[in-house]
């Protein structure tokens, strides 16, 4: 039909535009490699592959929760209730199995459904009543912690429950003494969550509307995307992940501690941000979050190897990194805006 074709190339090459959003995640991975190389150079035994594997054992629950947090942050929200929700889920499991004598096969789904449902409720409150996510989920933070302490204010052991021994059963990869390593089942739960989250975020309509809503909720609405469903959905995902984190914690410790996961929501947010996801939403990757969790784990590992530093140094390092990554994003964001001529 038309004889002229309107062509427009952005002033930088589109290759660069496409790659721009990978810079934060590349920085995180680079950092991870640098830390590992530094560890190798300075400490003997650092080359033990079990060291990497261990990152996914101690941090399995954190990883799962951080994946849920990635959904929420990508959509432009925040979820502060996840640490409390995790503790509540573990405690509820203990209560149902030990006190009520319910089989764990029933208790676990109940806890997961409850986590998902209360996430949906929070999301609905945020969307329909236009409550700030910060406030709505802060309420959740207090509420679930209170409920947990209401059930028990001291540790409840679930050692007697046979079901929970499966989680720490190990799968060996090669002979552990000859350069192999082993991973417990909970790590595989975490991996499965990551893979599913990746597929959902990148290859489903729900996932893409999470990005769209995070980019501009107003635009997403006017484009006819289901913003209500999306926003409720991300908090449901986060609630589910928090509850699953609670189940994993039950596997890992075989007890329920009412004060477990205090401040875990902040660790999860830190991991997401260090993993390159923009706090304002719309940009980031779930694999970045995996790298973020690994960086945080690696910091602790190095400090443990160093031996003469106390563990608070890990906090300091995370703080510094967070600042660095937020500045990096700010800088990239600025150059991104310039391109919109």
């Amino acid at each position, binding site marked *: *039909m*038309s004889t*002229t*074709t*309107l*062509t*427009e*190339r*952005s*002033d*930088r090459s*589109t290759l660069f*535009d*496409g790659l*721009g*959003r990978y810079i934060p995640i590349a920085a995180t991975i680079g950092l991870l490699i640098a830390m590992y190389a530094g560890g190798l150079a300075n400490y003997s035994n650092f080359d033990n592959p079990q060291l990497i594997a261990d990152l996914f054992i101690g941090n399995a629950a954190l990883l799962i929760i951080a994946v849920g947090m990635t959904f929420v942050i990508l959509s432009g929200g925040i979820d502060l209730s996840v640490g409390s929700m995790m503790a509540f889920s573990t405690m509820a499991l203990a209560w149902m199995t030990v006190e009520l004598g319910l089989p764990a096969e029933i208790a676990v789904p109940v806890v997961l459904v409850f986590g998902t449902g209360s996430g949906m409720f929070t999301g609905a409150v945020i969307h329909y009543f236009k409550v700030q996510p910060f406030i709505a989920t802060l309420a959740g933070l207090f509420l679930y912690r209170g409920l947990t302490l209401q059930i028990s204010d001291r540790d409840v052991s679930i050692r007697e429950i046979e079901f929970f021994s499966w989680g720490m059963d190990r799968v060996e990869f090669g002979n552990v003494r000859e350069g192999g390593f082993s991973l417990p089942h909970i790590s595989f739960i975490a991996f499965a969550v990551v893979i599913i989250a990746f*597929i959902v975020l990148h*290859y*489903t*309509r729900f996932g*893409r*509307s999470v*990005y*769209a809503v*995070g*980019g*501009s909720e*107003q*635009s*997403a*609405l*006017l*484009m*006819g*995307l*289901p*913003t*209500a469903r999306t926003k409720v959905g991300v908090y449901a995902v986060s609630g589910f992940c928090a509850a699953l984190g609670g189940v994993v914690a039950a596997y890992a410790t075989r007890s329920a501690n009412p004060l477990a996961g205090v401040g875990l929501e902040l660790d999860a947010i830190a991991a997401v941000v260090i993993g390159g996801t923009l706090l304002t939403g*719309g*940009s980031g990757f779930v694999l970045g979050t995996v790298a973020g969790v690994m960086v945080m784990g690696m910091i602790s590992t190095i400090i443990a190897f160093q031996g003469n530093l106390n563990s608070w140094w890990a906090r300091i390092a995370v703080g510094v990194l967070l600042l660095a990554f937020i500045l990096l994003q700010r800088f990239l964001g600025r150059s*991104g*805006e*310039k*391109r*919109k*001529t």
Partner: protein
Amino acid sequence: MSDEPIVQMAGITKDFTGVRALESVDFTLRPGEIHAIMGENGAGKSTLIKVLTGVHAPDAGRILLDGEPVRFHSPGQAQAAGISTVYQEVNLTDNLSVAENLFAGREPRLGPFINFRAMRRKASALLDQIGIDLNVAAPLSSYSIAMQQLVAIARAVDFEAKVLILDEPTSSLDRDEVEVLMRVMRKLAGDGVAMVFISHFLDQVYEVCDRMTVLRNGKLVGDWDTDALPENELIGHMLGREVETLEAIEHRPDRWPPGDAAPLVSAEGLGRRGSIAPFDLDVREGEVVGLAGLLGSGRTETARLIAGADRHDSGSLSLDGSKLRGHNPRTAAARGIGFCPENRKTEGLVPDLSVAENIVLAMQAARGWARTIPPARRDKLVAEFIAKLDIRPADPHLPVKNLSGGNQQKVLLARWMLLQPRLLILDEPTRGIDVGAKADIQRLVNELSDDGMAVMFISAELDEVTRLSDRIAVLRDREMIDILGAESEMTTERIVDTIVAKGGEQ
């Protein structure tokens, strides 16, 4: 083509806090017709569309679609019922790719999973159909507003809807794209699609529309067949007063005998790779220099270099004869170069701040945050510009996001005019502004330049450029190909000829 209306809106009333945007408005749309909704800025055109498509709930009135009463609660529902809309502000998510924006919410899938390859293929085919060639995998943010607007249109057209609504779709488009759009619209009308077209470009409205509904201050004035309503009568209906004054702004001949005064700002070999080829340009005090060229020809890029918004990588820029170093938007503002960018949504206004706060923002920034403007002076200045630009509603305390599109644009203009820069660069200042207000703005530009302000004026409307400018720099393919200055050269035809001729040489 049946005569049964496809959309009927009756007695629609919509109140926003303190403002009655629509009062008992009726509107009828028939299959296969292209129907214009006309009215001044703030008349309620966009609100009517938003009530129809479920963005706003009406306070009173009925909506019938195909004779059935309907009430949509979200644009998604309206879309599902066959009403596809391009809203006034380009509403896409620029963090996603072009292809994703085109198909968001209806991506081709394999089972539950999005088939990206098919999506990119369909996206290219769709853009090809309306004659645009973009890298569909690139993020939308890498393209200009005009391209984004075309993408939004392509998206809406592809829904194969019964009703297609275009709210100022052409505000940042050039002739060629408008031509393409009109061809698409006529074809759709032939297929029986009903269309609503909102635009402040009267010539476009007359060219493509069959009927017009005119709104004024939220009330229905009436509807007419296009043939039965000559332009001056239409304007009379829109403004509610007679209009002899409108065309009074003529080109002011020979105010500037060439080469007379020393240049205020002068660019020598100024350029930026991939953005605009090196060019020479002088702007003298009190002179209006127009930039003309097609979409993507480098108009905005030229302006951004001079305003310091982009860094130049060749040549130099001098002010009052001395070379500028470390040129960036801050220093530019301090040196008296004001730049009013074309994208009010992302580069201009702070939606939640009030009209007054938005207007004084740049002035406050220029003074430094410690020295606040005395409230009395501030109120006086704000009131003055609200009156001069006829910003409506004339309430300085209203959040700017509650203003109609055209009135937001006026707020942005007021901000830069208030600063009284020595050189004011206006990039598409009259976009989305109604006929009356356009004349006001043109008059204001004349006034400012008479007072000695130098102005660079960018507009896709060549009439406007020729009317206001003392000299016109013509751009093509990111290169400044000519500067027209003689009186005889200041015509639309001459500009078009220049662009075409240079194209032929290559």
